[in-house]
């Protein structure tokens, strides 16, 4: 088991693309996309985020990457409604670059704190 990731974007395509990109370097990590509104528009969906948070938690907790501010607001609201909010953390990191770094850390068996830390000051990149 490892920390799971949830990718909350205003765009379903961004969220799904981040999942495919991050999964490349972290094939065993559960990474769940929660992008777009319920009707497929641009925005965020509380229900999608809530479902993704449940799906991504395989026992070691969940780290969430968000794009813009409203994605953070929606995620925080979902955390307020979560049964075990202490098992969820939002990384203060850019969604794509942070997700790749977080996925690598989760693949290596990092804890929630380690995964958040890996995402936050994005790892040095070429």
């Amino acid at each position: 088991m490892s920390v799971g990731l949830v990718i909350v974007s205003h765009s379903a395509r961004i969220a799904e693309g981040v999942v495919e990109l991050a999964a490349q370097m972290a094939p065993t990590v559960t990474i769940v996309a929660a992008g777009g509104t319920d009707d497929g528009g641009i925005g965020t969906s509380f229900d999608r985020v809530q479902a993704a948070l449940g799906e991504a938690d395989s026992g070691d907790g969940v780290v969430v990457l968000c794009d813009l501010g409203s994605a953070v607001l929606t995620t925080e609201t979902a955390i307020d409604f979560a049964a075990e909010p202490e098992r969820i953390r939002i990384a203060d990191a850019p969604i794509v670059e942070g997700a790749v770094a977080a996925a690598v850390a989760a693949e290596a068996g990092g804890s929630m704190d380690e995964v958040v830390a890996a995402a936050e000051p994005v790892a040095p990149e070429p």
Partner: protein
Amino acid sequence: MSGLDGRWTRRWIEAVAAEVARRKLELTALDRAIGDADHGENLDRGFQAVLGRLEALDDDATPGAVLKLVATTLISTVGGAAGPLYGTAFLKGSMAAGDRAELDAAGLVEVLTAARDGIVARGKAEPGDKTMVDAWTPAVDAAAAAGDDVRAALEAAAAAAAEGAAATEPLVAHKGRASYLGERAIGHRDPGSESTSLMLRAAAETR
């Protein structure tokens, strides 16, 4: 009427839904100038969903029960920042209302205060950041200063919210999408402050 009961609360929400539908394009136009041009659609989607779910609610539901239904519906249907923000506001307001059958002036102030505090806790905006907080905060203060008459408190809140919304125009935004614009946000009214003003005006006019 002495206080604001569940039926009043429902009539108020129906009036908000009607006003949002009527002014949808106007709210979206404000959001087009300094945001992503969806605030009217977002709120209209949310309040139309509220109307649908209100029908299933008991006729004698308390104010708190109505507010809670509005909260959960907005949270799951609005799709923009206004969803978690107004959703949290109505949720905290419903918790403040508790299971009281009616709200008097003091109860109304408790509900409005809880709603505003919920928005601030969620969005971390301060007064002057050019957000809906700039309409809520003067509204709460004015209602609190209005004395024992619940209708006077509603009228004071609505008037103060309208002024607060107008006062966002000269500001630079520090929260939300308008913060991307820097000085270019000056001269434009914050859409969320205007929708707050709309809601509180509808409350003052609901009998």
